[in-house]
């Protein structure tokens, strides 16, 4: 902080604008009001924490209920009054969910999870490669028509998928890709999102770096591979995590394209379970399935939070 800083105490130079409570009053003020202020500040702080704790409960209660119900017997999920903690922990729900028979089809949790994992990994890799590669072209190479092409990407971001899903479906079915995992890979891997996010990031890397590499005789592909990619670790991580989670959670795409139960993803499978007259009475199992569908995302999110937050903040786009 500079000398103009009115605060008399040394404090960390926090460049962020914070709405934090008032700084200590100037030294010439009498002591009593200062203590009064400090007391009020403490009350404010306690109130804030209480409010936030209540709010966090509202935010997280559904997840708590989901996990606790996944350990209940089927007839124990709905009781009056609500049991927040099961009396007996029915861990067997997590065993039975893999093999349980429901009327529409066998619950096929194993292959649903496998399909979802394959799709998420393949889509993420493709999106990373094509997105970061194209972004290099858009941000570092000047050629006629470049801005028009980029505008085409930007323009489509505001177009809802529902608006063009019909022609897209027709195209996919003409090349016989419906009801294959390929349809989802193609659907998700070439999004404008990755290009946009990576371009935003490249623009923060000084041009001089690639300029000097160019003088050293490195080709553009070499600059992309040896300079830009190694420097864009955080952006790559953001894009990878956001893409993985989006593909994992996608419901409508798989719902439309994957018609045979063995091709389902976990989300479509879970919905089948829920819509099934027999499955929908197996509450405990249904919740166990929900937990399984959320768990990988929860782990990834908790490990890589920082990248989610940065990805959202830099792109400002829906993840």
């Amino acid at each position, binding site marked *: 902080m500079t000398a103009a800083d009115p*605060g008399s105490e040394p404090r960390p130079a*926090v460049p*962020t*604008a*914070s*709405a934090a409570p*008032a700084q200590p009053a100037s030294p010439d003020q009498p002591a009593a009001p200062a203590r009064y202020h400090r007391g009020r500040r403490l009350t404010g702080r306690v109130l804030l924490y209480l409010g*936030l704790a209540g709010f*966090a409960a509202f935010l*997280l209660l*559904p*997840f708590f209920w989901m996990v606790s119900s996944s350990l209940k017997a089927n007839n124990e999920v709905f*009781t*009056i*009054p609500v049991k927040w903690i099961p009396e007996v922990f029915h861990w067997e729900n997590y065993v039975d969910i893999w093999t349980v028979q429901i009327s529409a089809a066998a619950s096929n949790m194993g292959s649903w999870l496998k399909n979802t994992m394959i799709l998420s990994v393949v889509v993420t890799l493709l999106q990373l*490669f*094509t997105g970061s*590669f*194209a972004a290099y*072209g858009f941000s570092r*190479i000047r*050629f*006629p028509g470049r801005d028009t*092409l980029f505008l085409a*990407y930007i323009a*489509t971001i*505001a*177009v*809802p998928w*529902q*608006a*063009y*899903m*019909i*022609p*897209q479906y*027709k*195209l996919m079915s003409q090349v016989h890709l419906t009801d294959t995992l390929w349809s989802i890979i*193609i659907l998700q*891997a070439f999004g404008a999102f990755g*290009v946009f996010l990576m371009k935003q990031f490249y623009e923060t890397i000084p041009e001089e770096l690639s300029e000097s590499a160019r003088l050293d005789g490195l080709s*553009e592909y070499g600059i992309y591979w040896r300079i830009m990619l190694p420097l864009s670790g955080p952006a790559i991580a953001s894009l990878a995590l956001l893409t993985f*989670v989006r593909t994992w959670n996608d*419901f*409508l795409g798989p719902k*439309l394209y994957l018609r045979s139960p063995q091709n389902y993803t976990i*989300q479509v499978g*879970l*919905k089948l379970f*829920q819509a099934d007259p027999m499955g929908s009475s197996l509450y405990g199992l249904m919740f166990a399935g*929900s937990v399984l*569908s959320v768990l990988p*995302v929860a782990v990834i*999110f908790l490990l890589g*939070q920082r990248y989610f937050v940065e990805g*959202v*903040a830099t792109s*400002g786009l*829906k*993840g």
Partner: protein
Amino acid sequence: MTTATTTARPVRRRSRLRRRNTLLGLSFIAPNFIGFAVITLVPILILFYVAFTQWYAVGTPKWTGLANFRKLFLHDSTFIDALINTLYYTAAHLPLTLAASLGLAVLLNRKMRGMAFFRTAAFFPYVTSIVAIALVWNLMFSPDTGPINQLLRFIGLSDPPGWTVSSTWAMPAVIIVGTWREMGYYMLLFLAGLQTIPAQLYEAAQVDGASAWSRFWHITLPGLRPTTFFITVMLTIESMKVFDLVFVMTAGGPGTSTLVISQLIWRRAFEGEGEFGYASAIALVLFVICLGFTLVQFVINRRSEK
């Protein structure tokens, strides 16, 4: 090299460089662009044709001009219902989410113990699967035995709402879940916006003895104007195209009480007769609405930059 040789040479060299750059640039863009063009751009262009045709899942499109749109606005009460429901959802979800996410961002934008935890908690619903959360909320909303109505009875409401099984309360239930799910996401955008407001402004205001409320009103809000504007537009578009949440929570019911435009497109196209042409006309209407909001954003953005 002498400059006298010819004047044409630098020009030719420049055009060769340009051609080289074009090929190079395209080679970078191609892997993504080809996929993007086939899967997004071309279908969008096709939409503009098929919306004006009569076309069933099997068979070929037949040009019918404006017939689809005439039917849509004059003779299709389901479409009007869906349009009204979509506007209802937008009108409630937008201000709620905006206020909640702004409030959260301001509260959590401070260096205090535990703030990171609350930020994570707020963002968590947004990254979890919509199918799982819809399942949980639906059962929490169960009229007789669900925890929510038990709580409402406990605090003295003898006749709590029927939520997703009542045509009056199904939409509020969807709106609550939508707001719960999305406010953490917009909170992050607001937090990013808050970082751009210079700290000196707050320090100066404190020296002048401005209250917390007046600091919020005179510094925070004006400083966040670009962010708020961007978020408002995003939220409008996202609300107008709301789909998967409704699809998994209520499937449009009971009756048509939560049927939204996107769901209606899906129904007409992929359930029943497969009216691709007619459903595309609805899709075009949705497209035009979203495009309209985007253009408004561009125009106002441009104007505020000047």
